[in-house]
């Protein structure tokens, strides 16, 4: 289990931390803090969009 923790959980933990940074920073202040928040949450959203929308070139949809 320990051996498998890294490969499975590295990305989810990193995205979770980014989300937390994004959610909290806009609460702390305006201006720079809002920008940091948008950057952090935006990168999480971008990862989700990229992984779910990309199509491998060779992929053929089965019927």
């Amino acid at each position, binding site marked *: 289990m320990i051996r498998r923790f890294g490969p499975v959980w590295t990305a989810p933990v990193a995205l979770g931390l980014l*989300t937390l940074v994004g959610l909290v920073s806009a609460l702390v202040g305006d201006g720079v803090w809002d920008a940091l928040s948008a950057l952090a949450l935006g990168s999480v959203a971008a990862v989700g969009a990229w992984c779910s929308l990309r199509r491998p070139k060779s992929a053929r949809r089965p019927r």
Partner: protein
Amino acid sequence: MTPLYLRRWSWIHKWSSLVSTVFMLLLCVTGLPLIYHHEIVHALGNDTEVPVMAPGTPRADLDQVIASGMAAYPGKIMMYMSQEIDEPAVWNLTLGDNPTDEHYKPLAVDARTGKLLAEPAREGGPFMSMMFHLHVDLYAGLWGKLFLGFMGLLLLVALMSGVVLYAPFMRKLSFGTVRHERSRRVRWLDLHNLLGIVTLVWALVVGATGMINTWADLLLKVWQATELAELTKPYAGLPPVTKLASMQQAIATAEKAAPGMQVGFVAFPGTPFATPHHYGVFMHGDQALTSRLYKPVLIDAQTGALSASGNLPWYLSALLVSQPLHFGDYGGQALKLLWTLFDIATIVVLITGLYLWLKRGRETVARPVEQRIGEAV
């Protein structure tokens, strides 16, 4: 992870999700327009046009402001008055037939001239009002709220059990894999896992703060029954307030009691934020965080004398700080857009989850989850 352990978590995930899915879909869909509440109310022409005046134009006497509102609806009483931090030129008045009137009348009064500006539609007009009620209480008051709060709790259980199940499903896949070459069911399983884990922390925070929000009425009742009841004790046996003290003076007293803060809203006697004998004047700061932390100043509504000032109990402060984390209204347009994207991703997770259950097939039902994982990877 042992097969038995896995089967239990799978059962928990399946049932917590199935019971709450329809309501979660409703909350996600009705939540979308609520993110853009201000913009939609503006587009529908339901907001107030505020005349531009030179900066530093003196503000009208507050008793004049109240008189203007009351004159428009003789017979009604004042429930609340409030002002937005970014629109100090307007006092929003709420009038009703009684202090807890659900069919209250919102009015906008110019803070500089003291004249009635507009009669905004209640809850932003019929469309936004419907979205609001479907999202907040299903038109069923406190019990509707508590029911949706319980659905929120089930969502949290579904999210946590989903995390437990994520690992065995992903042990042979690299992060973000969507197997387009496989059947639709496998593709949608991958999408469900991917978007579920990407939106996890957002969904946990929005779900938990939404659940806390459903307890707002209860928490106010606790405050009423404890600290406010203590304040009301000396008034036992006294008749209700006959002539309300000057609001202009009450605000001046409150500003002295909370230096450096400004009035957020005033609750009139008998409303849930005051006592039958007090004005509840809620002062706040103008920074991102301090604007959420209200300081209540209780003022004798008959004499205008200061009765008490202090901080809200921790549970009400926690509620107020948790609200922006649910609404997504604290970081400008960028945050609203991100709230929209995460909301849509959550809708995809709900629909793919429902699809996976509908298309489980007859054999799948008979086969335990550990075999299905083996097949899926």
